[in-house]
């Protein structure tokens, strides 16, 4: 019930966007169907004349059908980039099999006696095809188009992942934000579209072959018109942004950024998080959202725009330790504090880059870092208890865990086991709270918004001040969970706006304010 109210409120608030996305969705489906019909029907007809090719062609289109849609879109990006082209092409490939197969089946289903009689009367091969086989195959052919339509309306939601718009934008935004109302806001119209198209084509299929011929011609005119609905807000501005659905949806993401900087003239498309960096690298978009310590910033030569007005919440990393462990092993705290303030954003980016793109092991990278900073010591003989280190499942956390493990081994007689790759925040946190692990690196923003979850008023009162947030979570964790936040490491792994280094230099943009100023020029 609550979801329903939220849903209606969401639709009301986003009515314009909903209409635009629906039109985009219809446009995507129509454009891909048009292509599939223009290619699939002649291909199917060719197969009726060259039946030996049929198993090969049907097999090939069948294989296309089995490629997972996300993977297919992924394959197409290096060739077609992002945006409508790869989306329409992928949808076209999915629509091909039912249309080719049903064209072939439809023509093969025409009574041989009818075809023989038609030839015997003196119709040419072309006339037999146009006046006899094709009209009589139309009901089956339409069934194929209907199948392709329903498939494409469904798959078109994925187009939102590659900046092609459509109702998937709400769906993936909702998934990223764990907002069921937002998911439904896109999913319900998508389902309704599929049902409506299905019902409409089912109605057409029941028409006589003669009327179908006329309707078929009408559809061939209608499809390009529908495809024309599909107009992206491109080429209307100096820069185009590509954002992940989560960034667009959450309050401290794009909306917060726009309040603080007023980036009204920055048109944006929605992209799968995994594709955002690729899109920037391939010049498909100019501005993207990312994480300030991501290894790809270095790998793809991107520039982090300084958040000079503090729009993004602070996500400073610090080790969170069980108080009982600190009390039992007083020598532990100073060892862990050795890294405090020693790693800034660009250092962390570099370390991440070496693991993610140079494929060095987190351990080798961690040890190398300690040696260069003069923190490295050979492991001591083990006489004491065992400290259990945890980490979430991405490179930065692996590296941090290896850093702490090496420090503990070098400076104390305690033994260390690492339990890395514990999935997401909640798994790590629960492991720490129940004593399955003794410490793991966490981020202040996560501790505040995901774990403590104070009222919005409290969050506002902190105002994105790094020190205030740190103090709040430190006190909160002590009181509520008996867990201790030690000093932050120094880097802030938060949202960031990124641009290609070269373009940013050329336009002399180093901060978000400068981006805003450039757009307003």
């Amino acid at each position, binding site marked *: 019930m609550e979801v329903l109210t939220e849903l209606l409120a969401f639709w009301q608030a986003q009515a314009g966007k909903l209409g635009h996305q629906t039109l985009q969705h219809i446009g995507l489906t129509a454009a891909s169907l048009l292509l599939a019909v223009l290619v699939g029907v002649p291909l199917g007809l060719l197969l009726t004349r060259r039946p030996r090719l049929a198993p090969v062609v049907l097999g090939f289109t069948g294989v296309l059908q089995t490629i997972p849609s996300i993977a297919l879109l992924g394959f197409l990006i290096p060739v077609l980039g992002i945006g409508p082209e790869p989306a329409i092409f992928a949808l076209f490939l999915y629509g091909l099999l039912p249309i080719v197969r049903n064209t072939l089946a439809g023509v093969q289903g025409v*009574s041989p*006696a*009818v*075809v*023989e*009689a*038609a*030839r*015997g*009367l*003196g*119709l*040419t091969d072309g*006339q037999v095809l146009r*006046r*006899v086989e094709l*009209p*009589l195959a139309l009901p089956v052919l339409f069934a194929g188009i209907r199948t392709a339509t329903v498939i494409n309306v469904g798959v078109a939601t994925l187009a939102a992942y590659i900046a092609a718009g459509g109702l998937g934008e709400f769906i993936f935004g909702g998934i990223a934000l764990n907002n069921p109302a937002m998911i439904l806001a896109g999913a319900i119209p998508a389902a309704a579209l599929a049902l409506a198209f299905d019902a409409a084509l089912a109605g057409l299929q029941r028409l*006589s*072959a*003669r009327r179908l011929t006329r309707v078929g011609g009408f559809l061939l005119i209608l499809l390009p018109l529908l495809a024309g609905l599909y107009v992206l807000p491109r080429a209307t501005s100096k820069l185009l942004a590509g954002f992940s659905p989560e960034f667009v949806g959450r309050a401290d993401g794009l909306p917060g950024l726009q309040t603080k900087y007023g980036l009204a003239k920055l048109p944006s498309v929605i992209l799968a998080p995994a594709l955002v960096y690729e899109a920037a690298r391939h010049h498909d978009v100019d501005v993207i959202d990312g994480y300030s310590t991501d290894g790809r910033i270095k790998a793809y030569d991107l520039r982090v725009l300084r958040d000079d007005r503090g729009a993004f919440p602070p996500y400073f990393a610090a080790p969170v330790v069980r108080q009982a462990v600190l009390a039992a092993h007083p020598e532990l705290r100073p060892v862990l504090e050795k890294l405090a303030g020693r790693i800034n954003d660009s250092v962390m980016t570099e370390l991440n880059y070496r693991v993610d793109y140079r494929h060095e092991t987190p351990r080798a990278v961690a040890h190398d870092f300690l040696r260069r900073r003069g923190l490295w010591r050979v492991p001591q003989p083990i006489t004491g208890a065992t400290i259990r280190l945890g980490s979430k499942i991405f490179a930065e956390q692996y590296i941090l865990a290896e850093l702490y493990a090496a420090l503990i081994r070098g400076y104390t007689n305690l033994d260390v086991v690492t339990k890395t790759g514990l999935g997401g925040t909640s798994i790590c946190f629960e492991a720490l709270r129940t004593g399955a692990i003794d410490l793991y690196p966490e981020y202040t923003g996560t501790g505040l918004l995901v774990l403590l979850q104070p009222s919005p008023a409290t969050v506002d009162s902190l105002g994105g001040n790094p020190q205030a947030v740190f103090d709040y979570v430190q006190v909160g964790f002590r009181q509520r969970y008996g867990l201790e936040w030690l000093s932050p490491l120094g880097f802030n792994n938060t949202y960031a706006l990124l641009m290609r280094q070269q373009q940013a230099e050329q336009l002399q943009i180093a901060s978000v304010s400068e981006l805003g100023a450039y757009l307003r020029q």
Partner: protein
Amino acid sequence: MRHATLCGTRNDSHAGRSAASRYLLTPLPLSIAPAPPVIRVRDLSKHYPGHMAVQDVSFELAAGETLVLLGPSGCGKTTLLKMLNRLIEPTTGTVEINGVAVGQQRPEVLRRGIGYVIQQVGLLPHYTVAENVGVVPRLLGHTAAAIAERTSALLTRLHLPPVRFADQYPHQLSGGQQQRVGLARALAADPPIMLLDEPFGALDPVTRAGIRREFRELEELRAKTMVLVTHDVTEAFELADRIALLSGGQIQQIGTPHELLFRPANDFVRDFFAAERLALQLRTLRLRDLLPFLPPSTKTALSKSLFLGEINISLSIDEPVSPNYSVQEALEILTAPEASDAAAAQQVADASARYLIIVESDENAPRYRVALPELMAAFAHAIHHAETVWKS
């Protein structure tokens, strides 16, 4: 083709018309054959991998002649037919139509000049009856008005009133009606040649007999040169001027029904007709063939007026018939009940009171007055004689 209807009743106006037409019939078209052949087939063969469908077939067909390709299933008769309009291309040999090799014409142009009817009819299911009939004239670019008029006329002649049938779709018609539409479609552009592949094969026996009768009487078909494929012996004898009996892709014998029946070229031909021999002989032998075997007492010099007077005196019924009548037709007339007049039928219930007067169209030729026993005796003699001649 030139045989008249087998009619049971004399007074039926329909039968009366066909009886009259019997006198007007020209003799067999073979006798007017000096005209060049319309269809000439020479050394035609069709080989499929591991299978000879048609081997070295040759024949000629004169204008207006009907050739029936007869034989068991798989004998190559349909393949042979389809090579005539190039639905199948021959491996070797030539087909000429009106002196032009068909291989030199565009197949669709060739086919538009040849009517084509098949067993499964093959009406275009998305066309109405009228549109189906109009297919070929439309291909030939006839005007809409001309097509409509022609369609309407043909449907009427084939007992499919256009008011009711023109706008119906094939699936709304019975099998017999569909076959008539198929025939109308083949005739629409009035092609001089017709190819028919088992045209009555898919119909039930009653419908089949009915349509076959219409087919034989159809004015449209009188002047056509036709090749008809069938495996039905009775149908072949009923419709053919000549029959080509095929087996294993080869013509076993080609000739008139009379020749195939009484002078079979080999055992295959003889055995092929064995089961229906008597029925075929009755159908094939004509009264003219029996004349030499009739007793002299039947010869009569009665003038027409006198003989008419005699009917009343003797209370017998005399039927004037042409010597072109088949023995079977004569038998049917002699044994048919008199439907028009119940009282007269009672009086002459004894068939011996009924006579046939065999009258030549030539007034001066002798006439014969024959009763049933004399007719049967003459028939037996004639058969016996034919057998003796063939054996020697």
